[in-house]
Structure formats: C-alpha cells, structure tokens
C-alpha cells in the first residue's frame, strides 16, 4: 500500500521540486489551506452533532422536570405530602447538583411560575427552596465570575427570596456595574418603593436603561403610592435627580412643584431640560414667572422646551412675552410663538412685523385655521 502511495506521489514530488520557488510556495499554501478547511469542516460537524445531542437532552430533561413539577403541584393541591412528592424533591435535589441539569430545572420552574399567581406560584417558590436550588444560587453570590453573581441575583429575584436581602445589599457596591444593577432590581422587585433607598447614597451612574428597568419593576408592584422623593430631587448625583424627575412625571406628583421650580436653575443642562419637560407635563402655572424672568439666560434647547410649556399653559397675561419671541432666530421658537400668539390674540398676530426671517412662518400660520 505504502509503495503504491510512494509510486503515486513520486512524480508529483519530482514535478514540485522543478517548479519555481513562487509556485512551490503557492502549492504549499494551498495544501495547507485545504487541510485546515477539512479539519474545520469535521470540527463543525462534530460541534453540530454535540449541540443537537445537547438540545435533545435538554428537551428530554425539560419534559421530565415539567412532569415532576406538575405531579408535585397536583399532590400539593390535594393538601397531602405524599411519598411521591418526597421522591420528586429528592430527585430534583440530586439533579440540581449538576449545573447543566440545575439550569433546566430552574427554567422549568420559571416557565410555569411566570404564568401563574396565588397558591400555585407559592408552591413553586417553596419547591425552589426545598430542592436546595436557593442554596446554590446563594452560594453563587460569592466569589464567582460577575456574570454568575448577576444571574444568581436575577434568579433569587424571580423566585422572590426575601431572606437573601442582606447579602444582596452588599452587592450594591460590587465592582461590576451589571451586578449592581441586578442588586438594585432585586430590591425594587421585592420591596417596591422602599427598595429604592439605595438612591440615597448612590454615587455611581444610573444609565437611562437602568432607570427604565427600575420603572418597569415599579410598574409591577401592587402599592403604587410614591414615597417622599424630595431628597432624590435634591441629590448631588445627576442620574438620581433624572430618575426622580421620571418618577415625578410618571406618578403625576404635583406636590413637588416647588422642588421642580428650584431645579430650573440646576447646573446641568440635561437636567434643566428634563425639569422643563416635567413642568410642562404637570402644567405647573407657578413656573411661568421664573421662565419669563430667566428666559434670556437659557440656552436655545431650553428655550424651545419653555415655548412648548407656553404652548400648553399660555393665557392673555403672556401675550407680550410670546409676541417678543415671534421674531426669534430659532425656527422652532418662532413657529410655536407665532402659533400661540395667533391663538391668544389674533389682532396682535396680524400686527406682527414681517421680515425676511419670519414671512414663511407668518403666512403659513395665517393660512391655518
């Protein structure tokens, strides 16, 4: 066999040796790439096979654990702790020691837990504790890669494990932002508005996405009574102020009108813009005087927002202020001011001095009913 191969290869090798150097390099590279490609093809085939086997196993185990869970719940329904129930707990406890199986068990429990409430949900939470799944999640809170810690917090939150709160609070100052965020979400999910106490001492960032997630968690809680948020509106952390403003808007908290008016002169422009937007949403009339007196000190972005505010609340007493803005160099301000003026005082609108700068806006608004 070897002789046959050598005989077959000999002329090829001889031919190769007589080739110019550059062609030799090309041939070697081609051969190398072909070998690498073949190895990769076999490796991909192997990976596909492994994934398929893993998927099948996952599916099979999921169906077994779902059956176990249902059997457990049926027995629980009958208000009896049967031998079968004890066997299920024992089996799940044993399987939960394997991380692969543990993940499938948790997924199976969550698949049902997220769809039901009341006694069935309570029974699933109890099963989570009885099968030691809780203990493993608690252990994962310590000395693990950050993503395992974040995942464990999320799991404990979904199963509403209140007793781990002291451990979760310690993670509020974790070095990784994602872990901090999960810890914050846990506290809000379990304690509602009380869970937001971490904002009192928050010195790190609270991104827009985190704020949305926190609002989403708050949306789910039963008690929708907003606590006193003055200290957050006065916070030195701009992100906390921004979040407090979102709360003020979402919960239509008119009682913070004075605080909002004070925030009009906040040092951060994005905060000032957000404050004007909240004031507009709540239609706080008391801020009119402040806006008028400080109008020239505001940037154009803020002036546009102020004009949107007047679009909502302007009355006859604002005609002069609005009139002055009809010739503003900013198109948005000019347009809104002209529109408001026409609505408030038609005759004054018609007396507007027409310049090259505002003729188009003037004619357009005049043509509209």
């Amino acid at each position, binding site marked *: 066999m070897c002789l046959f191969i050598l005989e077959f290869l000999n002329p090829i090798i001889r031919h190769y040796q007589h080739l110019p150097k550059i062609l030799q390099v090309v041939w070697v590279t081609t051969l190398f790439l072909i070998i690498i490609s073949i190895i990769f093809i076999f490796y991909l085939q192997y990976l596909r096979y492994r994934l398929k086997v893993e998927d099948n196993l996952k599916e099979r185990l999921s169906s077994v654990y779902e059956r176990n*869970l*249902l059997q457990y*719940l049926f027995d629980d329904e009958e208000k009896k702790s049967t031998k079968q129930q004890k066997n299920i707990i024992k089996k799940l406890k044993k399987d939960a020691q394997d991380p692969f199986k543990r993940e499938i068990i948790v997924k199976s429990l969550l698949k049902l837990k997220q*769809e*039901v409430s*009341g*006694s069935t949900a309570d029974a699933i939470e109890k099963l989570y504790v009885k099968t030691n799944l809780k203990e493993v999640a608690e252990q994962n809170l310590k000395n693990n890669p950050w993503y395992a810690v974040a995942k464990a917090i999320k799991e404990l939150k979904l199963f509403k494990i209140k007793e781990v709160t002291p451990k979760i609070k310690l993670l509020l100052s974790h070095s990784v932002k994602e872990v901090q965020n999960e810890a914050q979400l846990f506290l809000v999910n379990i304690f509602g508005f009380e869970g937001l106490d971490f904002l009192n001492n928050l010195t790190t960032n609270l991104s827009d996405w985190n704020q949305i997630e926190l609002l989403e968690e708050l949306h789910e809680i039963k008690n929708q009574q907003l606590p006193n948020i003055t200290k957050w509106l006065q916070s030195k952390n701009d992100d906390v102020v921004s979040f407090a403003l979102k709360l003020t808007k979402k919960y239509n908290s008119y009682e913070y009108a004075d605080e909002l008016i004070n925030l009009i002169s906040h040092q951060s422009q994005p905060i000032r813009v957000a404050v004007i937007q909240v004031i507009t949403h709540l239609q706080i009339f008391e801020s009119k005087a402040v806006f008028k007196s400080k109008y020239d000190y505001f940037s154009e972005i803020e002036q546009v927002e102020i004009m949107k505010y007047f679009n909502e609340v302007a009355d006859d007493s604002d005609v002069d202020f609005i009139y002055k803005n009809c010739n503003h160099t900013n198109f948005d301000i000019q347009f809104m001011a002209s529109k408001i003026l026409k609505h408030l005082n038609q005759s004054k609108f018609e007396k507007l001095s027409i310049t090259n700068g505002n003729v188009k806006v003037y004619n357009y608004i005049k043509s509209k009913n």
Partner: protein
Amino acid sequence: MNNLKNIILAEDNSTLSQLIKFRLQKEGFKVFLAKDGKEAITLIEQNKPSLILTDIMMPFVSGLEVISHVRNKLKLTIPILVFSAAGQEEMVLKAFNLGATDFMGKPFSPNELIIRIKKLLAVN
C-alpha cells in the same frame, strides 16, 4: 350532555396547559389541548366545545384569529376567555371587539380561572 362540559384550551406553554387541564378535569370538564391557534380551530370544529380558553400570543394562528374564526365563520356564541401578558392591553381590546367574553392577565391564579369558567358556563 357531554358537550356541555367540553373545553378547548389553546396555550403554547405546555406546563401551564397541563396544569389547567388537570384542574379542569378535577372539576368535571373534558379538556382538549391545542398548542397553537391552528390546532385550536381544528379542535373547536371537531368537538363543539362549551367554552374556549385561548392565549392571545401563539405561533402560526393567534388567539385573535381564533376568536374571529369562532365568531365570524363558525357563528358560535359560546364564551371565549382570553389570557394576555402584561402590556398587551391593546390586544385585549381587539379581542373584545372581535367577540371575546372575558380576559385574564398573566400571571393568573388557576383557582380564579376555575371560578370564572364556572360563572361563564352558568350564565350561558
């Protein structure tokens, strides 16, 4: 007489549908499970149910299409109770416009579901 107790349950979460099936069977109902709207329509046409339970979001044929088919094509007046997840308020309104009788937001209590089903069947 048997037809009075037939219930079609269209729900793509297999664990939830098995749980509800068990609870309803315990109450004396005969339950037919469908994992999507397409299967639900076939079961409805075959079994003449007294009540239909359907999730709004399902693969292939949605709960809304099931309601529309039952009310407009099959011209059935049986009660239809829809399940919806949070944030699907618009879908729920559409379901009512199409002829749904009642709805329950997820997560829901299986005990409450049984009470509602009994009430719906008693009224009808």
